[in-house]
């Protein structure tokens, strides 16, 4: 059952790949679009907000902010190490800097600058990594960040957020601006289905049960736009008689221990879903938590120690095993493992 408290989209199960729901496809938006809106709202709300960009204003969606607040936009050029360390200086002088580039470079190239000048200093810099995941598509492996959440999750003081849709991305951006400390925000390039609405609550550090089930046999913990594939998988498995819970884990760090452990306890079998390396990402984080708090069988959907390649987003998602059929297979497998244990 869809959680009524979250005011989710009514057509949340519509599949944009099917012709009958072409209207859904038209209504899609990218999480980077949501960021662009949220950044302007954050700047309106707080005069300390500034944005720095490494020569990618259009594709990181800082363009609107730049037009609206030219005096608060700072061009850095293609220099991501400088981007991060400059922002530490801006924060030390009282600003709330958002730094934007592709996730492959930010936090990919400037990881040490983030570690020393932002995390260790606990500076309220908001690191925005765009074009995360294989769904960047034709650009290929160099631009498909698959390790960014892992890089950021292991830094003390850092908060890591991976929004599921454009609306959640907007809210996450606003929330990050007011969060007292460094934040990594992960965004995608592609237009993806909207699942949440303006009324859906958002709070950093809170996971949300999107879908509940009577006598659930498994729970999916998903992050980012792949949450939609998780919902489709759960729906189809429900039609086949397997009750599946779906939890949106937008905040990878700090993890919402209570919600995650409670859902694992209820379902006794877990599948994690992310467009990222399994190692160090959501899957790793959930496994670390449940190994200590409530060990249950876990199956992981994500990239398995590989680099991406050029291709269309949809075919890459399928090739790297993150499609609906893969999630359904993982659900069957994890439920089977649970039965075998009993």
């Amino acid at each position, binding site marked *: 059952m869809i959680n009524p408290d979250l005011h989710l989209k009514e057509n949340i199960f519509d599949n944009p790949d099917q012709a009958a729901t072409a209207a859904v496809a038209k209504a899609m938006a990218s999480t980077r679009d949501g960021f662009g809106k949220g950044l302007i709202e954050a700047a309106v709300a707080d*005069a300390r907000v*500034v944005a720095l960009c490494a020569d990618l204003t259009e594709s990181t969606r800082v363009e609107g902010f730049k037009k609206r607040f030219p*005096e*608060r936009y*700072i061009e*850095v*050029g293609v*220099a991501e*190490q*400088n981007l*991060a*360390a*400059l*922002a*530490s*200086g*801006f924060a*030390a*002088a*009282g*600003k709330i*800097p958002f730094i934007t580039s592709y996730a492959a470079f930010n936090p990919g190239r400037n990881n*040490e*600058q983030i570690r*020393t*000048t932002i995390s*260790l*200093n*606990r500076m309220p810099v908001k690191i925005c990594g765009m074009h995360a995941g294989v769904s960047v598509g034709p650009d290929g492996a160099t631009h498909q960040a698959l390790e960014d959440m892992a890089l950021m999750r292991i830094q003390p003081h850092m908060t890591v957020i991976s929004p599921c849709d454009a609306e959640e991305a907007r809210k996450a951006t606003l929330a990050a601006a007011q969060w007292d400390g460094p934040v990594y925000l992960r965004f995608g390039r592609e237009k993806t289905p909207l699942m949440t609405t303006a009324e859906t609550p958002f709070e950093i550090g809170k996971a949300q049960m999107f879908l509940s089930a009577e006598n659930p046999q498994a729970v999916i913990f998903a992050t980012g736009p792949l949450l939609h594939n998780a919902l489709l998988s759960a729906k189809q498995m429900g039609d086949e008689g397997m009750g599946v819970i779906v939890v949106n884990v937008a905040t990878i760090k700090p993890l919402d221990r209570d919600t995650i452990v409670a859902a694992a306890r209820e379902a006794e079998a877990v599948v994690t879903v992310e467009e990222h390396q399994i190692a160090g990402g959501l899957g790793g984080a959930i496994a670390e938590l449940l190994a200590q708090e409530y060990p249950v069988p876990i199956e992981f959907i994500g990239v398995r120690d590989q680099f991406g390649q050029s291709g269309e987003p949809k075919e890459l998602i399928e090739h790297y095993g993150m499609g609906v059929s893969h999630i359904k297979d993982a659900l069957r497998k994890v439920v089977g493992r649970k039965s075998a244990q009993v």
Partner: protein
Amino acid sequence: MQPLTDTEAYELTARANAIRQTIIEMLLAAGSGHTAGPLGMADIFTALYFYVLKHDPQNPDWEDRDRLILSNGHIVPVRYAAMAHAGYFPVEECLTLRKFGSRLQGHPERLRLPGLETTSGPLGSGLSQAAGMAYALGMSAREGQTSSGGLTFPRVYCAMSDGEHDAGNIWEAAMWAGANHLSNLTGIIDRNNIQIDGYTESIMPLEPLRDKYEAFGWHVLEVDGHNIPQFIAACDEAKAIYEKPTVIIAHTIPGKGIREIERDYRWHGKPPSKEEAQVFLNELRTMQGKVASEHQ
């Protein structure tokens, strides 16, 4: 600003000597750390903390203070010693350097000791932070957010080593600061010609360093880094330069003040032994024998 009086210059020189003694004492107590760099920058840090910087040791977070970023964090003993002598914390605390639980970490950490401005050690990132601060302080002044009201906003100083100019991040920052005409930013390069593996010009030649900064849009000054009045005059000149950041290339002698250490790159990263420290402290107290000879 008026030129230094002879009395002021003498007092600063004496202060630098006392700071050098503290550096030797703290390195001996720590049993590890860097010796040559801190000694070589003692005159400049004395000039900064006791003459150049607008600051308040009792109120390290004073909004209108000048900012001093130390980019090459490994020479932090000179900063700790200068801060202690300036009144930020008791001089005795210097002996906790590098010890468990100390606020004086082996490399400086902003969150542990008020007044440090930032954390450093990994080389090449200080100038970016200083440039970001300089830009943001200018923004805030223009927005009328500072208590000073007008457009006289704080200056930002960034002390760097010459060796760390091997790092690309410094040149990214230098390009950006030049492009943004950050006239409230003053870089200070400790041009002592040594780095861990040898002499800078044999590891990775930096010359012509002046030309490089000028090409990046900076005003460049060169001084004798042990001539305190000359360094102070350069800092004053930097304040008069509009539309450009200034970098002061300070020619220093690593290990300055102690003959056994001067110009020897092997003293980059090791502390003195107990016996050596006694000899060095005596050398400093007698100003390399000059004081004793005057009384003979």
